[in-house]
């Protein structure tokens, strides 16, 4: 209904992404190949999955700093359930997913039931979940997963990496939920004015609880894919993931104050970051230089969006 208004930032970002792709492609002939692009898709899947959920979280005006820790905890639990408790691997996967989801639910509970600001609540669980991962594993790795398990992180379906299908599917589902369903409308409403949303008969706490639980689920799903991709389990997995994810979401035009943001924007933001990381590396820019560029692009893109908005008199 208000596509033109919401897509303003996304348009800038889209143009920026296209320019970046063209420039990067001209800098290195290895960049714009199907193989490389698919591979980059594989590499961004975990961050991407979490970023989809994080978009919902930030649109409600919240934030979730604990996603990286949930990823680490889920990975450890997967290994512990399978190796130490001797569960069959599929059962261990389901159980680990359930635990990660539960961790997200706990975040939601602390935020909705005890009214702790999300930043503080998840700052605490960031330390807690990582600590649990470290304690449970005693810093030991779990290795030696069966070959079939590696399909989730390394396999291909119709020439496209498995997790890219997952990410694609998740993106469509997330875009539909956020953009077209009553749940999505409720999400925006909560972010824009929580009281008015509650007074309009929206179950604010339930929606938020679902969203934080969803963030837990996505982090757990990313954990399983990650373990499958790197074939081992470590308690420090996913350290610093939250900053990458938040950078992607914010670059995608989601307002940190809530009420605004789209899945398309998040996906564009992720693509732009991944393209810069990959393309600059292929063009011979070193990692530290790339970090600087990403910082500049983040500030620049948001600045451009803000100025554009202002010129439109908004």
């Amino acid at each position, binding site marked *: 209904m208000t596509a033109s208004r919401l897509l303003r930032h996304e348009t800038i970002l889209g143009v920026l992404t296209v320019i970046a792709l063209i420039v990067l492609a001209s800098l290195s002939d290895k960049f714009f190949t199907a193989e490389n692009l698919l591979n980059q898709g594989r590499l961004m899947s975990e961050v991407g999955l979490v970023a989809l959920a994080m978009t919902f979280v930030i649109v409600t005006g919240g934030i979730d700093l604990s996603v990286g820790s949930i990823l680490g905890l889920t990975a450890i639990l997967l290994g512990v359930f399978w190796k130490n408790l001797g569960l069959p691997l599929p059962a261990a996967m389901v159980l680990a997913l359930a635990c990660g989801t539960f961790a997200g639910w706990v975040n939601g509970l602390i935020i909705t039931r005890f009214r702790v600001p999300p930043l503080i609540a998840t700052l605490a669980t960031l*330390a*807690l979940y*990582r*600590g649990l991962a470290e304690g449970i*594993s005693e810093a030991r790795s779990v290795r030696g997963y069966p070959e079939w398990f590696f399909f989730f992180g390394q396999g291909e379906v119709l020439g496209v990496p498995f997790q890219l299908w997952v990410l694609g599917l998740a993106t469509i589902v997330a875009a539909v939920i956020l953009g077209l369903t009553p749940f999505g409308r409720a999400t925006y409403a909560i972010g824009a004015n929580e009281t008015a949303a509650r007074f309009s008969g929206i179950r604010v706490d339930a929606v938020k609880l679902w969203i934080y639980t969803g963030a837990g689920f996505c982090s757990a799903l990313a954990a399983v894919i990650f373990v499958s991709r790197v074939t081992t389990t470590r308690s420090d997995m996913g350290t610093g993931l939250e900053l990458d994810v938040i950078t992607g979401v914010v670059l995608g035009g989601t307002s940190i104050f809530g009420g605004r943001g789209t899945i398309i924007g998040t996906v564009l933001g992720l693509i732009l970051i991944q393209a810069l990381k990959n393309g600059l590396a292929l063009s011979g820019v070193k990692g530290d230089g790339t*970090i600087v560029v990403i*910082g500049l692009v*983040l*500030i620049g893109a948001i600045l451009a969006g*803000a100025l554009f908005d202002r010129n439109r008199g908004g």
Partner: protein
Amino acid sequence: MTALSAHPGRSALHRFIGGYGQEIVVLLSIVALFVVVGIINPRFLSDTNINSIFAGNAYIAIAAIGMSMVIIAGHIDVSVGALIGVIATIAGTLAVNGYPVWVAWVVPILFAMAVNAGVGALVAYTRIPSIVVTLGMLSILKGGLISITAGEWISDLPTEFMIAQMRPFGIPSAVYFMVLLTAVAALFMRYTDFGRSIYAVGGNMEAARAAGINPERTVVGVFILHGLFAGIAGILFATQLQVIQSTVPPNLELTVITASVIGGVSILGGTGTVIGSTLAAILFACIGSALIFLNVSAYWLRAVLGLLILATVLADMARRRRVT
């Protein structure tokens, strides 16, 4: 209804407790911690241990002062860890290249203030959320530092440069800095117009404007002050040891933000004190040390720390609910 004597002003003590609830809770926690751990392992109370808890973490407390001001003004800075790393490197480079010691101390602090003036200006005048600007700044500082220094350690620092290692009257100078800066900042926040305008801007920006305060200038000023404190923290950080790593200290920003928040600074802005954040930084240092003294399994240390943070947060929420 209009009985004039209904509230002749609450008692001074009542007012004090009402105004410093969280600070008192944190202070009591510190005392309780010292008592309990001291009983279990008396060495915890030795002057050397207390000295090292305070001295070793003074830079975190000092950085938390500036962070508290930023959060009280309704903003946040996630780049402070990177900034401290950069300051330490600049200071060390100047010191080993033969510049006078005071130059090596002052120039990096000015640099930090200049960087933060830029951040503050972006935040205040373009209305980009501070978390976005500082997230970008984090990348820029971190990447820039590694590009330029390649992480080359700086050693052979002149002795007179090592301000944090000086011990006037047997107490590490870092402790003096922490106490002095906290006191000055607390007085500044309470007794100056600028200090109060920080609360005003964080509490209600439009009301601040109507009260004749220039919110933009206040925000820039707060970030510059934050740069000053981060700068001093960086110098102490740099002079604590004989070598400077030329890297960004890992997760420092989270530690600093957590200290501010646990110290009672509302993440929504407008309320909190710098005394609280310093106390909270000390509490954290104490907990970290106490857990080792209590023989908590090293593997579970972080989980316990997380649990304690969560407990503090929930206790604070419960306290607030009782008050209102």
